[in-house]
């Protein structure tokens, strides 16, 4: 069993499975409910496989994440709400 961590801290090449969402830890400009809804709407739900494919230049942000079979760009700040292992 791997240790749980927020996707927002993952390096390029990381692969894992989403354990749960925790919007209150993300510090996003969105409300917790809104952030969680948006993440789910983009397919970030428990059990989905994720892989960090690419990183931006400035503070390695944003990241391009493979979620099952689509690629989504998110900022690390919002990705902090996605707990993976």
């Amino acid at each position, binding site marked *: 069993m791997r240790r749980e961590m927020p996707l927002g801290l993952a390096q390029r090449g990381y692969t894992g499975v989403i354990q749960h969402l925790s919007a209150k830890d993300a510090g996003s400009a969105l409300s917790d409910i809104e952030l969680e809804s948006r993440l789910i*709407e983009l397919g970030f739900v428990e059990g989905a496989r994720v892989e960090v494919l690419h990183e931006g230049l400035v503070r390695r942000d944003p990241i391009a994440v493979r979620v099952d079979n689509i690629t989504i760009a998110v900022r690390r700040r919002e990705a902090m709400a996605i707990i993976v292992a």
Partner: protein
Amino acid sequence: MELPLLHLALVGTPNSGKTSLFNALTGSRQKVANYPGVTVERKEGFFVTPLGRQVSVVDLPGTYSLRGRSPDEEITRDFVLGKASGEILPDLVLCVADSTNLRLTIRLLLELKRTGRPMILVLNMFDIASRRGVSVDVNRLAKELGVPVVTSIAVRKGGTADLLALTDEISAKIPAEPSENTWRALSVAELRAAQREADRIIADCVSLPARPDTLTSRIDAVVLHPVGGLIVLAAILFVMFQAVFAWAQPLMELLQSGFDALGDFVHATLPAGLLQSFLQNGVISGVGSVIVFLPQIIIIFLFILLLEDFGYMARAAFLMDRIMGGAGLHGRAFIPLLSSFACAIPGIMATRVIDNKRDRLTTILIAPLMTCSARIPVYTLIISAFIPAKDIGGFINLQGLVMFGLYAAGITSALVVSFLIKFFMLRDYAPAPFMLELPDYKVPRLKSIAIGIYTRAKMFLQRAGTTIFSMMVLIWFLASFPQPPAGTTEPAIDFSLAAIIGKAIAPLLAPVGFNWQIAVALIPGMAAREVAVAALGTVYAIEGGKEAAEQIGQVLATKWSLATALSMLAWYIFAPQCASTLAVIRRETGSWTWMAVTFSYMLVLAYAASLLTYNVAVALGAG
């Protein structure tokens, strides 16, 4: 008995091919491109089914849910829920899915079912799915979802035959009283449950290949590399702006000599007099001087269309997100801003995908600073008259480089303005999140590029034939009347209304080095920026006679100082005058204030930039 019109609506996640399907069904030419958020308006079209049923179909912006988070998504929500005023509910909703990526659409479909509207699930892009080895048990999927399912290939001829047949079959048995609308915004728990349910159904009915699209991952390895990706982006933009100058030249010369020949012909066949002057100076050298820029405009559109169809735009937004964030811009602003290089109007419309109000407003305010294609004629005219066509380092053209510099100046000033807006007005600014799907690359389709270019070229020519033409008639009239008294030795134009008006404004513009001819040209330039070129063409043609009519560039080179030319270029980086852009800003922000703000800040910047450029140039001896 004639059956009533059947109302269809196209709903689905962004980039699933709704507009392609709309075009295939109705024979329209709405804009299709490979990034999420292309359609930002509702569009209605009509067709007749194989069994002869009259159908109205509405194309809607893509959405992940019915919550309506941004202005474009609200349009879809309101239409589906029948909230838009005077709107009838669709009889049948076509839920369009990208077959390679069903998760999000199936969840959306589960949500849509609650609206009670009859529905069909359209598995679009089935060609790509089959090629990748995705296989779907269509019958089982239909049973699990409780809605009919049909496959489609929107971009292939005949790819919608099954859908048409099914529409006929279903429309025959739509109940008069469809079930009730029980939709309300889903709670987080309901959303999660819906996604779970969707994933379960997909696991049962769809078998996915193990490997993702390898081509996309190979290209992305280069294009999304943190450093390499930015170099690629800069190179693409550089080549694009160089090309506008370098590649178009031969074609433009061809067009120019065509218009010259036409002018000569008119001059030779018609007796000297008002009609000859009107046709030669007003129509041919005026409108013609704008039409010669068609090749350049086609080139810039070609580049943008290729990038859009290939799937690069979303990547560029990804690369630029944090960099633009430094200037207070959101990553999603990149695509609207890049389309503003073609024209600010679609660019401003495209800001509807930005959900945060302040981010959207900032983007709208700076979009007109992107060098739109209407400025190309002005830049080109002045550059070719004043900048020598030298090669630097063997392959970079000096004129092209200056052009690139002007584009860069536009971009830089946009970033500075946005930074100032953030700094002074939106202090308490918490950055809105950036979340964007990066679609798989697609080979640009020749036909859709050709159609894209054709529609843009047609629009440009139509404008030349209407707005620009009528402005030219006006300018010609002002520059020709009243006629000089008999026996005078001064140039005829000095007695005209144009000279009177121009000389009245000229003192205001004298500090930036503009003469009265420029002052006159700037006014009709309000209708469309490129009219300024045409107006200069006409004014100098009437003033200078036949030789001047042919070579407006050479005339400028003798009449203007280099300082005036540079000042004019600086003016046009900002040039607030474009009535249609201002009207769109007013509509999209819903406020006269923001329109006035845009106009005034650009006017102030234009004046300041010209003043600075002119005085520095004069000080350096270019006066």
